[in-house]
C-alpha cells in the first residue's frame, strides 16, 4: 500500500515538473512533507541539499532518498520508476511524432525557432552556476570582497584547458573539484 502511494506521488512529481529541477522542488515538498508527512521540513531541506550535492536530477535523487527511508530498496525502486514513467510515456509520444513528421516544414520551422532558444537556456543555467561559484549563496554583488577568487581562477583555467587542449570535461570537473577542494581546505 505504501509502495503504491510512493509510486503515485512520484508519478505526479514526474508528471508536473516542467522546466528543470528547480520547478520540481515545490511539488516534491507538497507531496512529501505536506501531504504524506514522509519527511519533516528540516529533513526535506537536507534532502534538497543532498540532492544538489550528488549527481543526477533532483527529482530522481529525491525519489531514491525518500523511497529508501520509507520502504527500503523496493521503495526506492518504485519511487524512481514512478518518477521516470511520465517522462518515458510523453517523450516517447513526442519522439514518435518527431521522427515520423520531422520532414514537415512546420515541424522544421518550430525546431529552427527552438534551437537558438535552447542554446540560451543552457547559457542561462551555466551563468547561474558561475554566479553561485563566484558569489556564493548570496548572489551577485558589486562588493569586490564577495568575489571568490579561487572560483574565478579555476573557471578561467578550466575554460582554457577545455577550449585549447580539448581536455575531457569530466576530468576538468574532477580536477577543479580536487584542486579547489584542496585550496579551500588549506586556507
Amino acid at each position, binding site marked *: 500500500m505504501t509502495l503504491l502511494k510512493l509510486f503515485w506521488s512520484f508519478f505526479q512529481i514526474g508528471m508536473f515538473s516542467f522546466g528543470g529541477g528547480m520547478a520540481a522542488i515545490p511539488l516534491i515538498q507538497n507531496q512529501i512533507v505536506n501531504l504524506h508527512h514522509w519527511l519533516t521540513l528540516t529533513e526535506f531541506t537536507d534532502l534538497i541539499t543532498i540532492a544538489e550535492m550528488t*549527481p543526477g536530477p533532483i527529482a530522481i535523487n529525491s525519489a531514491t532518498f525518500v523511497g529508501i527511508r520509507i520502504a527500503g530498496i523496493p521503495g526506492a525502486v518504485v519511487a524512481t520508476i514512478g518518477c521516470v514513467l511520465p517522462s518515458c510515456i510523453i517523450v*516517447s509520444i513526442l519522439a514518435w511524432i518527431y521522427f515520423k513528421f520531422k520532414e514537415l516544414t512546420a515541424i522544421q520551422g518550430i525546431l529552427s525557432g527552438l534551437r537558438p*532558444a535552447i542554446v540560451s537556456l543552457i547559457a542561462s543555467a551555466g551563468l547561474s552556476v558561475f554566479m553561485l561559484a563566484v558569489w556564493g549563496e548570496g548572489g551577485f554583488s558589486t562588493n569586490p570582497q564577495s568575489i571568490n577568487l579561487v572560483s574565478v581562477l579555476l573557471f578561467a583555467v578550466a575554460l582554457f584547458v577545455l577550449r585549447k587542449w580539448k581536455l575531457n570535461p569530466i576530468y576538468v570537473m574532477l580536477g577543479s573539484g580536487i584542486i579547489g577542494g584542496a585550496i579551500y581546505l588549506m586556507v
Partner: protein
Amino acid sequence: MVNKKYIYIKLFTSTFYLSAFTFGGGYVIISLMKKKFVDDLQWIEEDEMLNLTAIAQSSPGPVAVNAAILLGYHVAGPLGALATILGTILPPFIILSVISVFYAAFRDNIVVNAVLKGMQAGVAAVIADVVLKLGSNVFKEKDIVSVIIMIGSFILSFLFGINVMYIILVCGCIGAVKALFQVKKGQKDGEHSQ
C-alpha cells in the same frame, strides 16, 4: 556494420559514466552528451542533438532523463532508449541509496563540501565551453531571427526569470511562422518567375 549489442553496451556505459558526473543540474549532462555523442562518437549531428534537447525541454520530467530517452531511441531504437535510461538512472540511484544511510555526516563533511565548491567552477566552465561553441554556430548561420531568439530568450530567462515553458512556446511559434512565411515567399517567387 557495428555489432548491435556493442552499441547497446556502449550507450549504457557512456550514459552511466556521464550521469555519474552530472553535478549541478540537468544542463551539464546535455553539454557532456554533446561532447560524447556528437563530437567523440559522432553518432548524432549537432543540429539533431539540439532538436532532441528542445523536445526534452518541452516534456515534463528531468531534462536529463528525457534527453537520455531520445538519444537512446535515436541511436538504437527502443532497446537503445532502455540502455540510456538505465545508464542515466542507476548512478544517482546507487549513490543516493548509499548516502541516505549516513546523509547527515555526508552533508556536513568539510572535505565533501570543499570539493563540491571547487567543482562548481569546473561545471560552469564546461557549460560555458559548450555554449560558446553552440552560440558561435548560431551567429555563423547569419540568420537574424535566430540571433534575436537566442539573445531575447537569454534575457527573458536569466534576467526576468520567465518560465522555460513560455519561452519554448513563443520561440516554437516564431519558428513555425517564419517557416510558413518562407514557404509563401517561395511560392510567390515561383509565380513571378513564370
